């Protein structure tokens, strides 16, 4: 992952978000029933998509870390970064959904299948992040977190089906329908697609930056230690040292 790749991803993300803004606010028509409030869909649905994707990435990266043959610290960094983004986008999804639901449903929240599952997802993520803060060696923390991510991953389909069996009031999924019949069409569908692509690009850009930040944090830790050791050695030998490459 080079600086160029990261910058290119950010450029793509910002450009597509700009395109989305134009499409969602100006080009797409208002909904026949819901009016302009429906435009929140172009943010809410992509945010939900990214939230679920981030969760999948965390789960996959955790599995790759746990499996001996692919174990590498990069998977742990990716899992952690993706989880942070997952919390962010899940919270955004819920907030936007609430804003959209108030004028359309008349309530800020409803206890239907999709909302309950998303709320559980948020708490699963938050728990994972809390676990990562527990002090411990890097390997211990990585292994513990990876197992917790696996536990959460196994839980999501169980939660989903149990809650769906329990109740349904949320609209049927319009694009990912069981009959595969997209019920939104034309400009609205295109705008939604642009939204999904833009948010995915944003997610990737944030992931790359967060990953790079994690590496920088680790390096700062090691470099500071090496520099401190070098200074001590210099002081002990009576020779003042200005700089030394870390041991």
């Amino acid at each position: 992952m080079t600086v160029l790749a990261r910058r290119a991803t950010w450029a793509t993300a910002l450009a597509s978000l700009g395109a989305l803004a134009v499409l969602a606010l100006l080009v797409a028509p208002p909904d026949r029933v819901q009016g302009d409030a429906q435009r929140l869909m172009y943010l809410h649905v992509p945010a939900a998509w990214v939230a679920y994707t981030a969760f999948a990435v965390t789960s996959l990266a955790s599995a790759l870390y746990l499996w001996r043959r692919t174990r590498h610290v990069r998977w742990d960094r990716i899992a952690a970064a993706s989880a942070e983004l997952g919390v962010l986008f899940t919270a955004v999804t819920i907030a936007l959904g609430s804003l959209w639901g108030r004028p359309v449903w008349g309530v800020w929240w409803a206890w239907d299948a999709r909302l309950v599952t998303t709320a559980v997802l948020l708490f699963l993520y938050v728990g994972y992040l809390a676990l990562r803060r527990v002090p411990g060696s890097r390997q211990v923390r990585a292994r513990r977190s990876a197992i917790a991510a696996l536990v959460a991953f196994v839980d999501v389909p169980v939660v989903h089906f149990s809650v769906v069996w329990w109740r349904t009031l949320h609209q049927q999924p319009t694009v990912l329908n069981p009959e595969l019949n997209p019920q939104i069409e034309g400009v609205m569908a295109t705008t939604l697609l642009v939204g999904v692509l833009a948010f995915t690009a944003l997610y990737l850009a944030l992931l790359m930056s967060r990953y790079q930040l994690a590496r920088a944090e680790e390096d700062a830790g090691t470099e500071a230690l090496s520099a401190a050791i070098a200074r001590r050695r210099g002081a002990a030998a009576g020779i003042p040292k200005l700089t030394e490459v870390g041991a």
Partner: protein
Amino acid sequence: MGGHQAQRAGFGAQVVLIAGKDLEIEWRSRVTAARVLPFAGILLLLFAVALDPDRGLLPRVAPGLFWVAAMLAALLAIGRAFAVERENRAGLGLLLSGIDPAAMYVGKVLALLAQLLVLEILLGVGMIALYDVAPGNVALLGAGAVLASAGIAAAGTLYGAVVVSDRGRDSLLAILLLPVLVPVLLGATRLFETATGGGDDAALWLGLLAVFSALYGALGTLTFGSLLEEA
């Protein structure tokens, strides 16, 4: 049993050994009984105070309250199950004994399951007496309680090992475990509602609880070993 004998014993014998150890510790010290059961009783009291028994609400919401109370009490029981391993470095002794970690997991799950079932029987009796609930289909209640408690014990023992070394372990266990147990709460409550009030979806909820228990039992058996290594 000496270390060599423990290692040579079969998987089943090791499970019985661990489960027996946990239950014997509880029997001798009665810590869980002295704390967890009163906690459940206090919850029954709090619910009655909060929901006002005169409004006729309590019998209707009793199934849900039962399982919320059971899960909160289970948090205490799980905490205790791992606290015994920390005392006198018993956990280290277990590791050195050469007992299969999977057997340790299953043993601890079974011991926890037994304690949870005792808790639930008492909770149920309390609710029948205090909330004016009619028991209904007792066999279905029993089956549901066993399956739901198996799920709570399986996931709870797994997470108990995940948080065992953390100083803020109790609050961390709560926020980690409770979201995961949402399907169990859902299924068990709906099942209890069917058992006490009638309905025909009992098989659905029993199936959900069974799948949950199987999934987490499998996950715990596979990963418990790697969690113990850090102690």
